[in-house]
C-alpha cells in the first residue's frame, strides 16, 4: 500500500500524543494520591465516594454529639452521687437525732448541719455544666431550676421536657433530665424530708423517734429514686458507649471503602506510569528512524 509522507509523520505524532495523555493522567494520580480526579474518571465511584465522605462527616458529628452527651450525663451522675452522699449524711443525722442522750444543744447542732446539707443539696440540684446551663432543668436550662418559695418550700421552675441528642440516624439519648421528678416527687421529695428533719430537731418535742423513722423512710425513698436515676444514666452511658463503638467501627470500615474507591494504588500507578514512559520512548525512537528514511539521503 502506498503511504503519503505527511501520513508517516501524522501517525507517529498521534501515537506520541496518546502516550503523553496517559502519562499526564498517571502523573496527576501519583502526585495527588487519588485515583479519581474528576467525575468522568469513575462516575459511579465518585458518587459512592461523595456519599461515603458525607456519611463519614455524619459519623464525626455523631461522635461529637456522643462526647457531649457523655460529658453532660457524667456530670449528672457525679452530681447525683454527691446528692446520694448528702442523703446518707441526712440519714445519719436523723439516726443521731433519735438518740435519747441528745440534749437541746446537740439537737440544735444537728439541726444546723441538716440546714447545711439542705444548702449543699440546693447547690447540687442547681448544678451547671461547662456551658453555664443547669443540668437538672430539662429544656429550660438558663434559669436555676430549683428555688425556695415564700413558704420556704423548694419549687421546680425548669421545664418538664427532657432534652435529647442524636447518637446516629435513628437513636437519640436523653441528656438533660427534668429535676422535679428526681428531687421533688411526692414521697421522695428530699427537700421536704430534710426540712421536716430540721424542724423536728429544732422542735421541743422530746420524743421524735416515730417521726424520725418516717423521715428515714422518706429519705430512703429519695435514695431509691436517685439510685434508679443513676442506673438509668448508667444505662444511657452504656448505650452511648455502644453506639460510639459502633460508629467508630463504621468509620473504620468507611475509611477502608473510601480508600479503596478513592485512593490511588501506588504500585499499580507507578508500574502503569513506567509502561507508558517506555512506550513513549519506543515511539520516539522509531519516529526518529522513520523520519530519516528518505531517498534523498542517498543522493547527497
Amino acid at each position, binding site marked *: 500500500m502506498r503511504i503519503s509522507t505527511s501520513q508517516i509523520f501524522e501517525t507517529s505524532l498521534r501515537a506520541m500524543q496518546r502516550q503523553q495523555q496517559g502519562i499526564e493522567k498517571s502523573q496527576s494520580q501519583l502526585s495527588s494520591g487519588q485515583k479519581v480526579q474528576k467525575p468522568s474518571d469513575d*462516575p459511579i465511584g465518585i458518587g459512592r465516594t461523595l456519599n461515603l465522605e458525607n456519611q463519614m462527616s455524619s459519623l464525626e458529628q455523631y461522635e461529637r454529639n456522643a462526647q457531649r452527651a457523655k460529658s453532660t450525663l457524667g456530670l449528672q451522675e457525679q452530681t447525683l452521687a454527691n446528692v446520694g452522699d448528702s442523703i446518707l449524711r441526712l440519714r445519719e443525722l436523723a439516726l443521731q437525732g433519735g438518740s435519747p442522750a441528745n440534749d437541746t444543744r446537740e439537737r440544735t447542732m444537728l439541726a444546723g448541719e441538716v440546714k447545711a446539707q439542705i444548702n449543699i443539696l440546693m447547690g447540687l440540684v442547681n448544678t451547671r455544666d461547662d456551658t453555664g446551663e443547669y443540668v437538672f432543668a430539662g429544656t429550660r436550662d438558663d434559669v436555676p431550676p430549683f428555688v425556695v418559695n415564700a413558704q420556704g418550700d423548694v419549687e421546680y421552675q425548669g421545664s418538664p421536657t427532657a432534652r435529647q441528642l442524636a447518637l446516629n440516624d435513628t437513636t437519640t439519648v436523653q441528656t438533660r433530665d427534668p429535676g422535679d421528678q428526681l428531687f421533688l416527687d411526692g414521697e421522695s421529695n428530699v427537700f421536704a424530708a430534710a426540712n421536716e428533719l430540721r424542724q423536728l430537731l429544732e422542735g421541743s418535742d422530746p420524743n421524735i423517734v416515730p417521726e424520725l423513722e418516717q423521715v428515714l423512710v422518706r429519705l430512703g425513698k429519695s435514695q431509691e429514686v436517685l439510685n434508679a436515676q443513676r442506673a438509668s444514666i448508667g444505662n444511657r452511658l452504656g448505650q452511648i458507649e455502644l453506639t460510639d463503638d459502633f460508629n467508630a467501627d463504621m468509620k473504620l470500615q468507611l475509611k477502608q471503602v473510601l480508600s479503596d474507591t478513592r485512593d490511588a494504588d501506588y504500585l499499580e500507578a507507578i508500574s502503569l506510569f513506567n509502561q507508558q514512559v517506555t512506550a513513549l520512548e519506543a515511539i520516539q525512537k522509531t519516529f526518529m528512524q522513520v523520519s530519516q528514511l528518505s531517498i534523498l539521503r542517498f543522493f547527497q
Partner: protein
Amino acid sequence: MSGLLRLGAQALSNAQQAINTTGHNISNVSTEGYSRQTVRFETQSPVQRGSSFIGQGARFAGITRNAEAYMSGQIRQFSSSVARMETENGYLARIDQLIASAGSNIGGAIQSFFNATQELASNPAGFPERQALLGQADALLSQAQSVDGVFSGLRDELNTQFRNSVADINRLADGIAMLNNRIQALSGSSTNSQPNDLLDQRDRLLKELAGKIGIQVVLRDDGAADVFVSQGQSLVQGSRSRELEVTSSANDPDLLNAGFQDSPQQYLTDLDGGELQGLRDLRERSLLPGQRRLGVLMMNVATAFNAAHAQGIDLAGVPGAEFFRLDSPAVDGNADNAGSGVLGVTVQDPSQLRPSRYRAAFDGTHWTLTRLADGSSVSGGLGSTISGAGLAAGDLTLNGIDIGVVAGDAKAIATRVTNLVPGVTAAATNTQTGIAFTTVTVANGPADYLLKLDGNVVNYSGPGTATVEDISAAINQMAGYSSSVTNGKLNITKADGSNFTLEESGTQANTQGISLLTTANPDETFFGRVEIRSTGQALVIGGADPGKAGLTTLALNDGGQAFGIDGLKFSLLGGTPTIGDSFEVDPGLSTTQALDLAINDANRIAAAKLDLKIVDLPGTTGTLTINDSELTGSDKFLAESPVTITYTSTAVWGSPGFHVVWGTTSVRIPYNPASSDRNGKLVSIPELGWNFVAKGVPSESDALQVSSAPVARGDNRNALALAALRQAPLAGNGQRRFTEEYSAFVSSIGVAARQASTNLETETNLLQQAEAYLENSSGVNLDEEFSNMLRFQQFYQASAQLIKVADTLFQSLISSL
C-alpha cells in the same frame, strides 16, 4: 527529420509538464486537503505508411487528480460526527473539572449545613452555634449559586457559539457557491480537464462545513456541488447559496434555532451532526437537565427546611419564620401569544417537582399542563374559572392597605373585594355605599348567612333566598340606620354620624368570602381594617390596624380552581388568554439564583417547639377540658397569645358554641355539649388552623385560656427535627437524601463526560482511518515524487537528446550537400 524534431520538441514539452506537476506535488506536500496530481500522456495517432503505421510520439492528455469521491463523502460524514462529539466533549470536560473541584461540592455543603443543625441541637441557645448554622446556610447557597451560575454561563457561551457557527455556515456556503461558479465556468471550456486545485479547495470547504452541520453533497455534471442540510433543504445550489439566520424560539427565548432567511419560522429540525447538533444536544441532554436537577435539589432543601423550621419557635417564642427565601419560578409567555393572559406559577410541593420544563397551553376552554421532559400532561379548567378576573398585588389600595392575591385563584373573592373599594373609600363620611351582595341562599336562616350591624343581627326575611334588597329593607327597619340599593350594591348610613361595624358570617358567608369589621377606635380611619375571612385563597392584608401592622398573609383555599402538575400550581393572574396561547416555566433553572436567607438574626432560628398552657379562667365551674396534646393545627402558634375560649349557650346565632377571642379578633364556633360523649368532640377553628378535642360539660360562661408556655432556651426539639431532614428521602422525587441526590448528579455528569469522551475517541478513530486511507491514496509521497523527478529528468534529457540528434542529422545533411 522534421518529424523527429517535432517528436523531440513534443517530448520535451511533455517532460517539462511532468516535472512541473512533480514540483507542484512536492510544494504541496504539507497542504491540507491537497490531492496529488499525475500527468497523463497518450500515444499520438500513428501515420500509415504503406502497410505499416508509424508512431507519432506521445501527447499531453491532462492531469489527473488522485481523489476518491466516495471517500470524501464518508470523511465529511465522520467530520460531522467528530465535530459534534468534540463540541459536547469540550463543554462536558469543563463541567467535569468544575464539579471535581472541592469548591463546588454542594453535597458537602449540605452535609455541613445539617451538621450545624446537630451542633445547634447540642446547644440550642448558643449564639456561636446559631451563627454557624446561618453561616453554613449562606455557604451552601453561594456554592449552589456559583455552580448554577457556571451552568448559565455555559449556556450563554453555547448560544454565542451557536450564532458564530451559523455565521460560519453562511461564510462556507458562500465560498462553496463561488467555487461552484468558477468550476462550472472552467469545466465547461475544455472537455476533459478539471480545475483540480479548485476542486481540492471546494472539498476542503465542504469538509469544514460538514463540521458545522450535517450535509449531503450531490455532484452535478457541470462540476458544481449542490449542498443540502437538515431534511433535504437546499443550502447551496450551483452558484447560489441561501443565508441561514438564528432566531430565538417563541416559547423559550434562550433556545436558539437556525432557519433560512427566505423562509422564516421554518427551523432546521434535523441538524444531523456537526457543531450545531453538538451544541443542541449538549444543551438539551446535559446542561439543562444538570442545572435543573441542581435547582430542584436546592428547592427541595429550602422548602423542607422552611416547613420544619415553621414548626418550631425561636428564642423569643415567635413561630419559626421563613428561613430560606424562595422566588416563584419565572414564567415565559409565548412570544406569539395573542391574548392578554398573565400566568402565575407557584411551587407548592417541590418534592414532586421533576427536573423538567413545563408548558401550560390554552385551547379556548381548557388548559393542558405538560411536563416537557417526557410529555406527560394533565388538563383542567383553569381558564374557565378565573379568566379575566384576577387580582394582582398592588391593584387595590385603600387607606394605605394593599390587597392582592398572593397565590391561586381568587376570582370570587377578588370580584367582591373589587366591588368593595368604592364603598370603603366613601365610608369615611360614615356612609357605607357600594357593598356588593350577591344573592345568598339561606335555607337554614341566619345560620347560613348572618349579617350584623354594630353587633345587631340584621333580620332579613328567611329562610329562603335573600337578595340585597331584602337586606337593605331589613336595615331600614333598624333604628338609627338607613339603607338603599344602587346597582345591586348596598349603601348604609348611620344617623348619628358615628362609625359602624358591619360583620358578615355564617356558613354561606364563609364560602363567599368576605367579612368586614370596622375598628372600635374612632381615631382610626373608618374601615381602617379589612379582614378577609374565608376558606378560600391567600390574600394579603395590612394597614392601619395595630394588631395587623404591616402586611399579613391569610391562607385561604383555592376552591380547587387553580390546578397543577408535579407540585406546581398554575393560575391566571389577569388578562384574557386566547386559543393557542401558551406559557412555559422552568422551575429548576429560574429559582436557584434568587434563593436567599430570609433570616439574618441568629436568635430567630427556631430550635425549640412550642408548649401550650391551657388553664381554666376564674369562675369556671363546668368540666370542660382541652388537652394540649389534643390541640393540633398547622398554625397552632399563638402570635396573639392568649386565646380565650368561652362557652355560651347562645354564642352562635342563639345556639350553643364557643366565643373564641385572640388579640382583637373573635370568632364563634358551634359546639353542642349534648352531642359530645366521653371521647370528646372535635372542634375546628379554621382562622387559627386549630383542631382540638373538647371534653366534658361546660357551664354557662366557662372559659379556658390557651397560651404559650414560656420559652425554654434549652429546648432543642425542633433543632433535632431539622437535623433529621438530612437522612430523609426528600430529594430526587422522594427517592434519595439531599446529599445522595447531589452524588447522583455528580455521577450523571461523570457518565455524560465519559460517554462524550469515549464517543469522541471512537468517531475520531473512524475519521482518522478514513482520512489515512484517502491521504495514502491521494497524498504526496516525497520519495515517490523524487523518483518521478529523476524519471522525468531523464525523460527531459532524452527528449533534448532527440532534438540534438535531429539537429545532428540535419547538420550532417546540410554539410553533405
